[in-house]
């Protein structure tokens, strides 16, 4: 294993914005394509229900600041979402122009135009509400926790956020492919949120006992702890140097400079979700000569979105379908390849059974293997809190309020969805904040 061989300049270029921001003219021409739908499908499809036709019309009428206000009023992570949302399956998937012109309005890019415009001018749209004398604790400073905290500050409640890491923002800051969201941008978007008067305590992990304490000392508590490390494969050789955990591989491009990042010459990525594509495209950008995504099922079953798959293909990534990993191979104390078993699918869709093809084992030589599997929930921590229920990796809450089975304890984000998108986390934080607001107000009476 070695550090990337590419120079700083080349790396900067490789990790530059996937879609650079629009100019004013580009934005206006694109905005003019919007039909200004009534009860717009795009707005409904956006989990935070941003009033899309309104913000696009504000761009069209040369009011990008008003446009940004429309966006941030529904989604305080509007800039991150503009960069990283899978718009293809959200607003743009719903856009009626997709039916009429086979091409949706580029809502994400327009959203970025407006939010960047306002951010560059350091416009502040929100003020803390009048002090209510109530205080709420938030665990986890990811999109869910901070969206909740921001909404609570607007309502005038005092908010303390406890974050295990030494950097705020959760996966939004360090987990999203750097060519979508740079660390620098992610942190800049947090500034106006934190300026609302949020008491942020970094490097402050909270355990089950801690949660119980918070429930005693605060009027309400919100859990936005996301998910933990990725699952293990439980096959021989998993500890061999050169075998990486997917998240660690992505994290390094955020926590250190690009030229400190490690990458193999031949990289095999195991899994075929969006995280796998992120790992594979990052490996290419860091200078890997050959990158292969190996997946047990076929292209049809992969959970990566179509545009992610297209991106991967455009980056020259190889795909090995029907390949189930059996062993990481070692030579001189280092990874030298991954042994796979060819499998056939018996049945339909994701329920199909995997059946080994006799004599179908093979080796892909590589000096780096990245396990891009789903993240594990914090089951141990959560089930240690009396009254919380975790089912199929999800913390069970009332979806309309974010309320858990414990009075005063609310939750949202990846910990209740087992991994969705930033935009879902933001919305769930918002919904919980509204419910918490009702709860703490009624408590005093």
């Amino acid at each position: 294993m070695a550090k990337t061989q590419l120079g700083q300049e080349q790396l900067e270029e490789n990790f530059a914005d996937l879609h650079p921001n629009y100019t004013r003219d580009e934005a206006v021409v694109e905005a003019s394509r919007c039909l200004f739908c009534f009860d717009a499908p795009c707005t409904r499809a956006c989990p935070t229900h941003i009033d899309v036709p309104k913000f696009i019309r504000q761009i069209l009428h040369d009011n990008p600041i008003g446009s940004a206000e429309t966006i941030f009023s529904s989604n305080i992570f509007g800039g991150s979402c503009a960069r990283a949302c899978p718009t293809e399956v959200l607003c743009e998937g719903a856009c009626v122009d997709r039916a009429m012109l086979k091409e949706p309005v580029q809502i994400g890019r327009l959203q970025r135009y407006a939010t960047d415009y306002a951010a560059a001018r350091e416009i502040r749209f929100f003020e803390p509400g009048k002090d209510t004398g109530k205080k709420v604790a938030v665990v986890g400073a990811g999109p869910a926790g901070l969206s909740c905290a921001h909404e609570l500050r607007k309502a005038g409640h005092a908010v303390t956020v406890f974050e295990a890491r030494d950097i705020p923002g959760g996966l939004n800051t360090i987990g999203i492919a750097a060519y979508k969201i740079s660390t620098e941008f992610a942190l800049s978007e947090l500034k106006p949120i934190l300026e609302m008067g949020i008491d942020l305590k970094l490097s402050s992990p909270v355990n089950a006992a801690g949660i119980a304490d918070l429930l005693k000392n605060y009027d309400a508590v919100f859990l936005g702890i996301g998910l933990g490390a990725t699952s293990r494969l439980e096959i021989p050789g998993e500890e061999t140097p050169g075998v990486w955990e997917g998240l660690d591989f992505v994290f390094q491009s955020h926590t250190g400079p690009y030229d400190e990042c490690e990458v193999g010459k031949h990289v095999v990525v195991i899994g075929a979700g969006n995280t796998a594509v992120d790992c594979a495209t990052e490996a290419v950008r860091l200078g890997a000569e050959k990158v292969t995504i190996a997946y047990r099922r076929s292209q049809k079953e992969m959970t990566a979105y179509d545009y992610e798959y297209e991106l991967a293909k455009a980056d020259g990534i190889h795909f090995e379908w029907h390949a189930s990993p059996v062993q990481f191979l070692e030579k001189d104390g280092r990874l030298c390849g991954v042994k796979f078993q060819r499998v056939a699918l018996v049945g339909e869709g994701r329920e199909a059974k995997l059946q080994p093809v006799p004599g179908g084992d093979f080796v892909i030589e590589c000096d780096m293997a990245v396990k891009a599997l789903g993240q594990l929930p914090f089951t141990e921590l959560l089930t240690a809190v009396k009254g919380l229920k975790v089912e199929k990796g999800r913390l069970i809450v009332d979806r309309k309020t974010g309320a858990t089975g414990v009075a005063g304890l609310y939750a949202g984000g990846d910990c209740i969805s087992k991994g969705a998108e930033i935009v879902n986390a933001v919305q769930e934080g918002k919904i919980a904040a509204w419910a918490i607001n009702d709860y703490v107000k009624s408590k005093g009476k």
Partner: protein
Amino acid sequence: MTIRKPDISSNICGIKSPNPFWLASAPPTNSGYQVRRAFEAGWGGAVWKTLTHEPIVNVSSRYGAVDYDGRKVLGLNNIELITDRTLDVNLKEVREVKKDFPNHAVIVSLMVDSKREVWHDIVKKVEDTGCDGLELNFGCPHGMSERGMGSAVGQVPEYTEMVTSWVKEVAKTPVLVKLTPNITDVRHVGRAAKRGGADGISLINTINSIMGVDLNTLAPRPQVAGRGSHGGYCGPAVKPIALNMVQSIAADKEIQLPISGIGGIQAWQDAVEFLLLGATTVQVCTAVMHYGYRIVETMISGLENWMREKGYAKISDFQGATVAKVGDWADLDLSYKVVAEIDQNKCIHCGLCYIACEDGAHQSIRMTTITEEEFAKRNGNGGPASVEFSGGKRVISGSGDGRVNIFEIKQDTCVGCNMCSLVCPVSNCITMVERESGLPKMSWRQYTEKLAKGEVEKIQPPVHV
């Protein structure tokens, strides 16, 4: 049967041109260099930028435009005056161009002080070039009108008649009088021109306008050192006003003169509409200022192919065909009834028809919400809503939050106003279909007469929510 190219040549009061497309008197006809290039590009005629005895002085800046949600120059205005070149230079160039383009129409636009000898002098000098005809600019609404010329003449029927008759005293070529639209009823001036002896009418010239205000400087647009003036408005946005005026001149019993139609023409369809509503030739300015002479190619080809499709061999086969179809409101048939109908297989679920009818018309569109599952089942692969899968997620355009809005016309209350069909972005998705109204065929005029005699029942007001 072979379909030949139709004959699109024109003849207006004896002035011939290979096609009916002329350049209006304006910047595109400012010089011999330009008119030559225009003819080479395919224009059939050109009305030279208005001449006068002494070159005028212009200001800068001069033009302003209206854009509409991203589309540029829907309308243009200017505070430019007539020619800023000497009469001698202009006359020399007119002569040369006419010599080199004997089959094209070269018309010279004129505007001088309202004195008989002055008009006589310029008419003689100009006709000496060999030009095909004259156009009297009684329409320029800014600058020149303050000096008693242009629309100052065109707004007073008596002046129009007087100056036209002075010109006719000496003119040997046909005389077109160009009318201003800045008047309540253009027919009065048209009739005056006729009395003065005009051979034809050109209209419209530009409309008085202020283009807007610069929201940074608070100066009007266009501005000259922070001040503005009432400029002349033209371009695609003015076409309906021009069509209305052209038709009213064409339909007038007294006038009965050939018309050169002007105002907002940018596509072949616009030109055909002018011809149908009574024009014999058409003139274009703004569209050429925007895109250049080359646009005539698409105009010619559009006209030819439309004629071919319709089976017209020459322009006179359809010229003026729509004039008599416009008349008084009181003669429209009250028994005629249309209602809107939505083709559910074309609908993309944008909701624009609904909100237009709900807020701006007659609350006659029903919006119902169905689940995405129900929609997918109903629609199959038939409708335009594209159903796709990505990463195991189903996406349907027009669907959000798991639901789709369906729009249907309440045909019992629909008044047939057209509004929904006008705003629907999908062509032929909303059509207006004829329905039996149950009323006897009659106009308002006939209805009021019959009502007075007790022969018909009173028509009941429409049902509203």
